[in-house]
């Protein structure tokens, strides 16, 4: 982050402009918005400093596209930032891949269930992937009436009907998925 501060105390002597890191194609003087009259471009001017030297993508548009992390902006307490950070890292790196089998299909698939936000989301993706109809979940009847019913193996090794528990709980306990034929699944739905 220190490279963001171009210390140009002897600006006229050292011609630091020549070596200044910025966004934008070489040869352009003022990338991004032209500030209106009366505004000097500051030493750490938000839209002319590239904090990641490899991002020379020639992006001359609004600075909200930069991942600029100027120290002190946005003015959020570092305590607050630290509280949120661990979660962010977790969310970005871990994906939860589970095998999906469908009765009658010749091979299995694998999906990342973390990508989905809710049951309807997941089920429509499964319907899409396997070209089948799973239908709508109901607490009483399960997927009764549908051609297929989605089930999953949980941490304890039991086969459960998809949809009974809260989504977050499902994500953390699902080990694999199996799309059962409706007729076979009747047993699960009737409990």
């Amino acid at each position: 982050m220190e490279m963001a501060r171009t210390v140009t105390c002897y600006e006229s002597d050292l011609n630091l402009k020549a070596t200044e890191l910025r966004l934008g194609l070489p040869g352009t003087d003022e990338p991004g918005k032209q500030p209106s009259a009366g505004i000097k471009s500051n030493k750490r001017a938000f839209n002319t400093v590239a904090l990641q030297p490899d991002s020379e993508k020639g992006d001359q548009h609004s600075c909200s596209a930069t991942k600029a992390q100027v120290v002190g902006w946005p003015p959020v307490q570092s305590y607050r930032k630290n509280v949120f950070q661990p979660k962010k890292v977790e969310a970005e790196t871990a994906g939860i891949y589970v095998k999906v089998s469908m009765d009658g299909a010749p091979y299995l698939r694998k999906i990342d269930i973390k990508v989905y936000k809710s049951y309807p989301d997941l089920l429509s993706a499964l319907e899409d992937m396997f070209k089948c109809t799973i239908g709508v979940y109901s607490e009483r009847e399960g997927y009764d009436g549908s051609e297929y019913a989605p089930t999953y193996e949980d941490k304890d090794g039991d086969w459960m009907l998809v949809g009974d528990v809260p989504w977050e709980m499902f994500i953390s306990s699902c080990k694999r998925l199996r799309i059962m034929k409706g007729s076979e699944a009747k047993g699960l739905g009737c409990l």
Partner: protein
Amino acid sequence: MMMNYFPDEVLEHVFNFLTSHKDRNAVSMVCKSWYRVERFSREKVFIGNCYAIDPERLISRFPRVRSLTLKGKPHFADFNLVPPDWGGFVYPWIEAMVKLGVHLEELRLKRMVVSDESLELLSRSFVSFKSLVLVSCEGFTTDGLAAIASNCRFLRELDLQENEIEDRRGHWLSCFPDSCTSLISLNFACLKGEVNLATLERLVARCHNLRSLRLNHVVPLDTLQKILGKAPQLVDLGAGAFVHDPDSETLNKLKNAIQKCTSIRSLSGFLEVAPCCLPAIYPMCLNLTSLNLSYAPGIHNNELIKLIRHCRKLQRLWILDVIGDKGLGVVASTCKELQELRVFPSDLYGVGNAAVTEEGLVAISAGCPKLNSVLYFCQQVTNAALITVAKNCPNFIRFRLCTLNPTIADPVTMQPLDEGFGAIVQSCKGLKRLSLSGLLTDQVFLYIGMYAEQLEMLSVAFAGGTDMGMLYVLNGCRKLKKLEIMDSPFGDVALLADIGKYETMRSLWMSSCEVTLGACKTIAKKMPRLNVEIIDEGDQMETSPDDRHRVEKMYLYRSLVGHRRDAPDFVRTL
């Protein structure tokens, strides 16, 4: 002077009714005898800058002090602009109070460095110590907390807000003796480590006067349920983890316990949350006056909205921007008693996309007639919106608006935001605190100097065009106490125009501006009662500093005790 014929006891009795520091300070300046009576009867002292005075002088003026509030680092330290080890140590204060026989009962610290040694000394030295409140402090571990728990026999309040505390895996909570039943307030939400849950339950059970309890993220929902069962008298609750199978017996018990907690007015926490469990707290929402969900990223937009629909009596709301403009519309139509709103950004490491815009703020301003304090992080704002907000809310005391892009113009007109903020200061005649952001020229400062007569604190970043900007503020804002400026083109002309002004203020911070070392030296030379500190983290000092050298960070504050003796190497006091 009639009052001079009253015996001191009468004067003292009258002064007891004055609760604010400002009033007591004013009273002490009336005449010598009032000064004398006031100083011997003052029990609560507030020191806004711990380096403005030293403990010996303080205690000699107020020998009967029982409650001390101290603030250390400058505000911008919150945003990593001040290097670690800058200062703000509380140890010398505690040491002095011990030596001079102060009967300390309350200590409130903000942005100070608190060591375990200081906590141990504190705990062993003051027999009637009752209340410790630490806000945004650092330097201590759970060992220090263990000392407080073990030794402060009459402890009523242990309130830890947003501190960086090293967890030593001790059992600090178990250090409260079985005989401790005096706790009224316990807040350990910022602790990262485990606590013994059985110990916690027993502690809560025996402290019948417990009013405020804020748990950390490791305390699970079933412990919460047991605690609520034992403490139905709670007024303020911070939930830890709020995750459970919604169809469980535990959740039913929780619902029953909540029914009995009819006094809860303030709710916070939910550091981990399963949204399906939230309906359990709806009964609590009806009477809530304060709700802080700004540390609950697990609650999504629609659940937030459902919850807020129950909160008709809310006066204070701290929330994440996941609520969105539409959600703020729901707040506006539901929370008619709302006085304070803070909307924090949830996406801190991404590309910087806030989920709220000026629309949300406008809705709130239209729907909440009692609104007087706002902190709002948003994607963008327009002059038109700010003008509307100003018209709707002439009663703002605090107004802080942060656009995620600090130099963004009005997206509709492409103009600077001068007119918008100008409208705010013109309309809100009682405005005491203001933070600006967005594209801003000297014009906004002209407005601030002209209209912001009650302004005490101003925060500026990436704003202004010439020295005139800063001059308008220094010349105009008679009540200015704290001015903090980053990345703005203000230089020596502005800095030196009226250096006497700085003695009327608590402090001035300027970083990444245009002020030079020479100008800072000038001030230091002419004003012995100002400390001018330069923070230099690079190697500027080694390469024989020239007075024309631009100063990266300057912190200037009035002080009655001269240069501080605990400044680290990178701080140079001129």
